C-alpha cells in the first residue's frame, strides 16, 4: 500500500495530468471560498442588523418585528439543515432544471449557509460593544446608520475577527461538497485522478495537503489583518 509513493506521485502528477487537474480544482475552490465569504458577510451583516433592530415608532416596531422573524427563520433553516442537503435541494430541486450554472449555485448556497453563522458572530460582536459608544454617537446628532457603520461595527469587527477567521476556515473546507452538484473543485479533481490511476492514497494525501496549505495561508492573512486593526490599541 505504501510502497513507491514517490513513483506513484510522479506518475500521477508530473508525467500525468494530475497537477493540471488539481490546479484547476484549486482555482475553483478558492473562488468559491472567496465569493461565498463575501456573500456570507453581506448576508450575515444584514441578518444581524435585522435581528437586533428595535423600532421606536409604531410603524417602526412592526417593521422591526417582521425583520426579527425573518432573520430567525433564515438562521434556523441554514444552521439546522446540512449544507449538502441545501446544495442538492437548490441545484437538483430548483436551479438545475432552470439551467443555472452549478458553480453559481455553489457560490450562493455556501454563501447563504455561511451567512447564518456570520450573522450570529456579528450580532454577538455588536452587542459586545459598550452602549455608551452608541449613546455618544447619537448624542452628537449622528443618525443611527452612521453610528452603527462608522462607530459600532468597526469596533465589533475588530473583536470578532478571530471568530470570522474560524468561519472562513470552516467555509474553505466545506466547499469540498460542491462536487455533489458536479462542480469541478479540488476534491472532485482528486477523485478524477483516482479514477484514472486506480490509486486513492496519493491523490487524497495531496488533496489533504492542498487544503491544509490554503487554510494556513488564510490563517496567516487573518492574523495580519488582526494586527493591522489593533493599531488603535497600541497607538
Amino acid at each position, binding site marked *: 500500500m505504501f510502497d513507491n509513493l514517490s513513483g506513484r506521485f510522479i506518475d500521477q502528477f508530473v508525467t500525468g495530468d494530475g497537477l493540471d487537474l488539481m490546479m484547476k480544482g484549486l482555482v475553483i475552490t478558492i473562488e468559491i471560498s472567496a465569493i461565498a465569504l463575501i456573500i456570507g458577510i453581506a448576508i450575515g451583516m444584514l441578518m444581524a442588523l435585522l435581528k437586533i433592530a428595535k423600532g421606536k415608532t409604531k410603524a417602526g416596531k412592526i417593521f422591526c418585528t417582521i425583520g426579527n422573524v425573518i432573520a430567525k427563520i433564515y438562521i434556523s433553516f441554514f444552521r439546522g439543515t446540512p449544507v449538502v442537503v441545501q446544495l442538492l435541494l437548490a441545484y437538483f430541486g430548483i436551479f438545475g432544471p432552470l439551467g443555472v450554472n452549478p458553480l453559481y449555485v455553489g457560490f450562493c448556497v455556501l454563501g447563504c449557509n455561511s451567512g447564518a453563522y456570520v450573522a450570529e458572530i456579528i450580532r454577538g460582536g455588536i452587542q459586545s460593544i459598550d452602549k455608551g*459608544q452608541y*449613546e455618544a454617537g447619537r448624542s452628537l*446628532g*449622528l443618525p443611527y446608520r452612521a453610528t452603527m457603520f462608522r462607530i459600532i461595527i468597526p469596533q465589533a469587527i475588530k473583536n470578532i475577527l478571530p471568530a470570522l477567521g474560524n468561519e472562513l476556515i470552516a467555509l474553505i473546507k466545506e466547499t469540498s461538497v460542491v462536487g455533489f452538484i458536479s462542480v469541478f473543485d479540488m476534491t472532485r479533481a482528486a477523485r478524477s485522478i483516482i479514477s484514472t490511476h486506480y490509486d486513492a492514497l496519493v491523490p487524497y494525501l495531496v488533496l489533504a495537503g492542498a487544503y491544509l496549505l490554503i487554510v494556513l495561508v488564510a490563517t496567516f492573512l487573518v492574523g495580519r489583518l488582526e494586527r493591522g486593526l489593533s493599531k*488603535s490599541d497600541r497607538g
Partner: protein
Amino acid sequence: MIEVKNLCKDFGKTKVLKNINYTINKGEKIVVVGPSGSGKSTFLRCLNLLEEPTSGEVWFEGIKINDEKCKIDKHRQKMGMVFQQFNLFPNMTVLQNITYAPIKLKLKTKEEAKESAMVLLQRIGLEDKAEAYPNNLSGGQKQRIAIVRALIMNPDVMLFDEPTSALDPEMVGEVLDVMIELAEQGMTMVVVTHEMGFARSVGTKVLFMDEGKILEQAPPNEFFDFPKHERAKAFLSKVLK
C-alpha cells in the same frame, strides 16, 4: 431654552422620575445633586432623549422634541453631552473623534473641522495628542477631549453626566477647570455631579433630587447654607464633612 413638563420615566415597574416640571433658561448653570438612584442621571438623559420619557413633554428651543414627528438628530446637535465613562471612539484618533460628526453632518468641511478642532485642543493644551488614540490617554485627557468633541458642534447647551466620577482624584481638577472656563464664557450647562465645590462656585441654581422628584431648587449659597428639606439636610451632612 429647555422646558420639561410632567416628565415621568419608568424602567419596568420602577418609577424613576415622578412628574418633573422644570425650565432651564439660557445662560443658567444648573447643578443636579442627590443620592445615587435618585433619578438625576435619568433626568439629564431625558433632556436629549437618550432615555425616552414614559410620559410628559420635553421642549427644546420652542419645539417638543419627544414627538414622533420630531427629527431628534437635528436637535441633539445643539445639545452637547459629556458622559461619566468619556465614551470616546477607540477606533478613531483624537482628531477623528472630534471632527467626525461635524464633517459627517456637513456642518463643516474637512479643513474647517480640523482647524476648529486644533483650536479647541490648543485651548485644553492637548494639541500634541491630535493623532493619538484614546486608549493611550489618561482619564482626565479623555474627558477633556470628550468635552471638546461636544463643543465643536457649537451646542446651545451642554449636558454633563457625572463627568468627574470615573476619574482618578488628581485628574478631577483639570476637567473641572475646562468646565469652569466654559461656564465663564456663558454656556448654558446642566451638570449632574458629586463635586459640591463646583456646584457652589459655578452653579446658578442647585436642584436636589431624591426618589425621582426635585425636592429643592435654590441658588447654591442658599442650598448649601440653609437647606430646607429634611432629605437635603441629611444628604448634605453626609457629603460635606
